[in-house]
């Protein structure tokens, strides 16, 4: 098995220390793009195992944690080396809601898949989303929320984007355990996801990226 394949299997099996050691080793031998690709393959497997009911949320949280540790190792090189990105996602938990465990998992999975993610935190008011869209010009705006009242905040955020003439310049995806088709229609989003893997897949679709 090549070193990269070993990373994929250690990461997918959630063997934290082994994964970290292998990534350290790989850093000296491989271009960043290939290490990222291994991470993407690993998180794909984690996602599949979750969908099949072999992994549970505790495993997703842990996978996110491992990926963040990997990112820390890659960061110094990320500043020097260009990696290709699929697109930019501006992500935040909407006003009135402070849940962020799910948002952070989605962020890790999206980054592993090759998106650049700008995370603007929790309890983010609509106006702050508007300003961040102007500043970062993302391809996608991702709104996270777990409270029922977050659905209304999502709507107000999307309305604020409309009012500023920004709605047509971005795709909007909403996510979190309580969003559904109703919520998508009510808020005027382009897509909804209640799982990170579904979310990543939809983000690719929204940008017309083929698997």
């Amino acid at each position, binding site marked *: 098995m090549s070193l990269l394949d070993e990373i994929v299997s250690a990461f997918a099996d*959630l063997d934290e220390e082994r994964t970290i050691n292998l990534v350290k080793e790989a850093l000296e031998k491989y271009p960043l793009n290939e290490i990222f690709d291994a991470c993407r393959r690993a998180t794909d497997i984690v996602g599949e195992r979750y969908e099949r009911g072999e992994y*549970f949320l*505790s495993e997703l949280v*842990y996978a996110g944690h491992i990926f963040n540790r990997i990112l820390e190792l890659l960061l110094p090189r990320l500043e020097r080396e260009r990696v290709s990105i699929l697109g930019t996602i501006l992500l935040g938990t909407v006003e*009135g809601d*402070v849940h962020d465990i799910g948002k*952070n998992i989605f962020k890790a999975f999206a980054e592993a898949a090759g998106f650049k993610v700008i995370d603007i935190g929790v309890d983010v008011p609509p106006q702050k989303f508007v300003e961040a869209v102007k500043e970062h010009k993302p391809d996608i705006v991702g709104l996270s929320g777990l409270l*029922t009242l977050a659905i209304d905040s999502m709507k107000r955020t999307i309305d604020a984007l409309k009012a500023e003439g920004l709605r047509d310049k971005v795709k909007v995806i909403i996510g979190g355990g*309580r969003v*559904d088709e109703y919520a998508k229609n009510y808020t005027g989003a382009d897509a909804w996801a209640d799982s990170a893997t579904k979310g990543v897949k939809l983000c690719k679709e929204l940008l017309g990226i083929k698997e």
Partner: protein
Amino acid sequence: MHYTDFEDIAEQRLRRIEAAINFREPDRVPLNLPLDFGFRARWYGITTYEFFFDYEKAKKAIIKTATDFPTDFPPSTIIGSGLLIGFLLKDYPEIAPLFGALTGPMHDILRDKYTRWPGRELSPNAGSFQFIGGEFMRADEYDKFVENPSEFMAEVVVPRAHQSLERPGSAEAMAALIRAALEGLKYIKFTDSLINELAKLGYPSANATALTLVPLDFLGDYLRTIPGVLLDLRRKPDKVKEACDALMKNLPYRTFTFKPISSIMIPLHLNEYLSPKLYYEFYWPYLKNIITSFYNRGIRCHVAFEGRHDAYLESILELPKGWGVAFFEKTDVRKAKKILEGHTCVMGGVPPTLLLNATPSEVEEYVRKLLEEVMPGGGFILATSAPIPAETPPENVKSVIRAVEKYGVYRR
């Protein structure tokens, strides 16, 4: 309304609930519609800041909404969050209820770090107060915790979690505790009078009188944060297990009244997160033990199975029949009812997102279809699967009430 009328109504509502819990068909399906604090404040025309910081206004808002949106269960009389100190006082029943809830004024006094409030950290009309939790115990402190959980919580966690109690034994800390107790007294008087007024509207006092948490959830909510516990489960499962066992030996709970405990509320948080391996080692044995031992003392548990509990529905059958009420949030109540038929009373069924967006007739149709499937045989209480937020069109809430009266009747 005559004096006896409201007693009759209360009696009728209580009978309805009791029948459902005991798997007899009541006259109609009992209804529980938890309106959240923001909804009540808006309907009465005040901000949530006013609601949380002025008990009199809160009382009026609750009475108004309980009148205009009648259901079988009384509204929650706990106007606040969970006060950590309350968990430490269960051996002092003569004062414990004073610290049963963390109210807005109490937050001002104790300056806790685990909640945020409208008009304080939040805008004056934010949807609700927010419980945010916190990491008040470090990952390397499990041994100290296990040695003596209540001592560790009282001496290390409480000072870390409340700014006013940062220096235990200081005049500032003593003053804060005394002021908090006086505030608690005011609050208890308020809940007593609220319960009396609700009785005049025909509401039985059917609320849980205490609250406890499964040890792992206690670690997640108040000590290590939820992501923290999940990492600990990977990195030091033995320590986590020891901590759960230590908590179990002297299970902390908060009481809300000076009367003897009659039923206890247990909200579950980590259930949905855990793989079967973790669930059956770190969660279920404790939950089962808690429910069974309360049951043996004649105390009924109200368990909120948050998230998707599908993977573990069957295990509920290991509990003694009629142990209490299982409230489901994201789990399909149709499925739950089928599996738990004749064993556990199921509550839930209406997602609040439906009420946010549908028309009243769509709501009615949804309730009709649902009831058709789940009402036969009793053992079912219709409820929204989460509190109804302020933005919900009130006519949709009324539509649920009408639909139950129309389609939830077992016999005329």
